[in-house]
């Protein structure tokens, strides 16, 4: 489907926000779902880029993405201008199951991993029991911190250079909170694989249910290429990230 670029802006060096309006609304979107964005009308780069949906209209008449420039494809997306056309497939995959009202939820996000939680914050009515742990190299890359604060989410930050909040990786901050006696019922995480792996280990150790939105190289996004697999925990089989995920209960897969 053809989408028109309605907004594109730089969030931090190498990070962009892109908002698209499709020809026809795509219907209900669940935070954690993704779309496949075509980056070139030619065959080079060939593959679409999977992007987690950030904010969105309830009827799917507009949706946004947080894009980090990591190569040629994402650079082309970042160079789009308002009014430009992008061919998009989706939404695909299984997103996060929304927490019940009042449930103590910790969200752990790094880099573009904030994306699904932007849509979630828009949707949730009660945010009092949610803490967002935001990690980055430096305070410039604490994406959407002000947005979450304004939405009423409690935000705790960790930066590797110590420019804001806890000095070190975000999982260090979480560990120190847990050692002080705080304990959530559920954890959601999205971001770099090492971070999600560490979050999953922490959660499993303490019997906290934990859901992670995995990232994977994928050619199609709808289950045909079998490229984006992750190993099923305790088995010698794989499951597709695009179809069964991208959001998984961390006890079910190997991150």
């Amino acid at each position: 489907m053809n989408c028109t670029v309605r907004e594109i802006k730089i969030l931090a060096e190498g990070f962009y926000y892109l908002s698209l309006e499709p020809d026809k609304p795509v219907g209900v979107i669940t935070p954690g779902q993704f779309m496949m964005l075509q980056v070139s009308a030619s065959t080079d780069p060939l593959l679409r880029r999977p992007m987690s949906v950030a904010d969105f209209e309830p009827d799917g008449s507009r949706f946004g993405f947080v894009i980090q420039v990591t190569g040629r494809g994402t650079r082309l997306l970042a160079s789009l201008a308002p009014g430009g056309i992008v061919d998009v497939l989706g939404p695909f995959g299984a997103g996060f199951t929304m927490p019940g009202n009042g449930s103590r939820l910790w969200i752990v996000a790094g880099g573009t991993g904030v994306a699904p939680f932007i849509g979630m914050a828009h949707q949730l009515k009660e945010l009092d029991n949610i803490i967002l742990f935001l990690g980055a190299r430096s305070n410039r890359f604490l994406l959407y911190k002000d947005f979450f604060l304004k939405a009423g989410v409690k935000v705790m930050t960790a930066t590797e250079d110590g420019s804001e909040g806890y000095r070190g990786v975000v999982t260090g901050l979480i560990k120190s909170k847990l050692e002080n006696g705080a304990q959530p019922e559920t954890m959601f995480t999205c971001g770099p694989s090492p971070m999600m792996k560490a979050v999953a280990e922490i959660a499993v150790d303490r019997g906290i249910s934990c859901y992670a939105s995995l990232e994977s190289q994928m050619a199609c996004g709808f289950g045909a290429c079998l490229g984006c697999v992750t190993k099923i925990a305790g088995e010698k089989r794989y499951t597709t990230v695009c179809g069964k995920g991208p959001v998984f209960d961390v006890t079910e897969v190997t991150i």
Partner: protein
Amino acid sequence: MSKDINLSNTVAGIELKNPVLAASGTFGYGLLYEKFFDVSLLGGFVTKGLSLKPKAGNPAPRICETPSGMLNAIGLQNIGFDKFAGQKLPKLAKIDTSVIVNFFGDTIDEYVAMAERLDDTAGVHGLEMNISCPNVEKGGAAFGKDLKTTEKVVSACRDVTSKPLIVKLTPDVADIAEFARVCQARGADGISVINTVPGMAIDIRSRKPVLANITGGLSGPAIKPIAVRMVWQCYEAVNIPIFGIGGISSAEDIVEFALAGASAVQIGTMNFIDPSICVKLIDDLKVLLKELGADATGGAGGAGGYRELIGAAHKK
């Protein structure tokens, strides 16, 4: 209004509404694409490579993008014959198009066992023998790169099935025409040319191969000239029909394969990028054939415009 070009043809004993099929490994078991378009509009489709027992496939990363192409090392992950026959095939019966099952084994006996079962299974219109997958240790290209083994496995499967038997060839051989001749001599009804081209990519930061399997199969528009050349060579060598495969992304590409000698074509990697590309190509092909004047001898029931083009570039 001008009369629609008749694209139907019987290729390797399989009735095709048109010469556009979806290639194995890019189309699942056919059902995934129903949400994108009416799959019955296709000439046919070839299912994901199937073995007797389910196969888990290779660890990730399994794919990697390359200039106008991609590398894959899926490792023939599949649900196995029983689950396919029990769960997928009954649903495929409702789709009015030709279903070709791609199959493989680790041993010749396993190839034969699969051919026997598929021969017995209603709803399977043709068999595509995969002796060309570059991403598995046994079977696959390990068989397809050896002339004697190719001869043996084609003969053995031919003995147990009267259904159309197509052999999918690897480009990773010195002379593909030799393999085409052996397939013809041993009774194959057709050949599929080509499977992916072995390749690899290395991550310059980690200094490690990108794919967990180290090497993979290159597909997509990048391999089209290799495929056209090999279809050409096979057409010179044999009389059995050729399914042309390799980087097709436009109706122009289809015509090029036809001129080289392809009686039908299979669309592979491009299904990932545009899941309804096959139907678009069928429509585009009709327009292009008219534009090229290739519909002059066409018409309902007569020789189709496409058929007139098959191997036409070989005419001196």
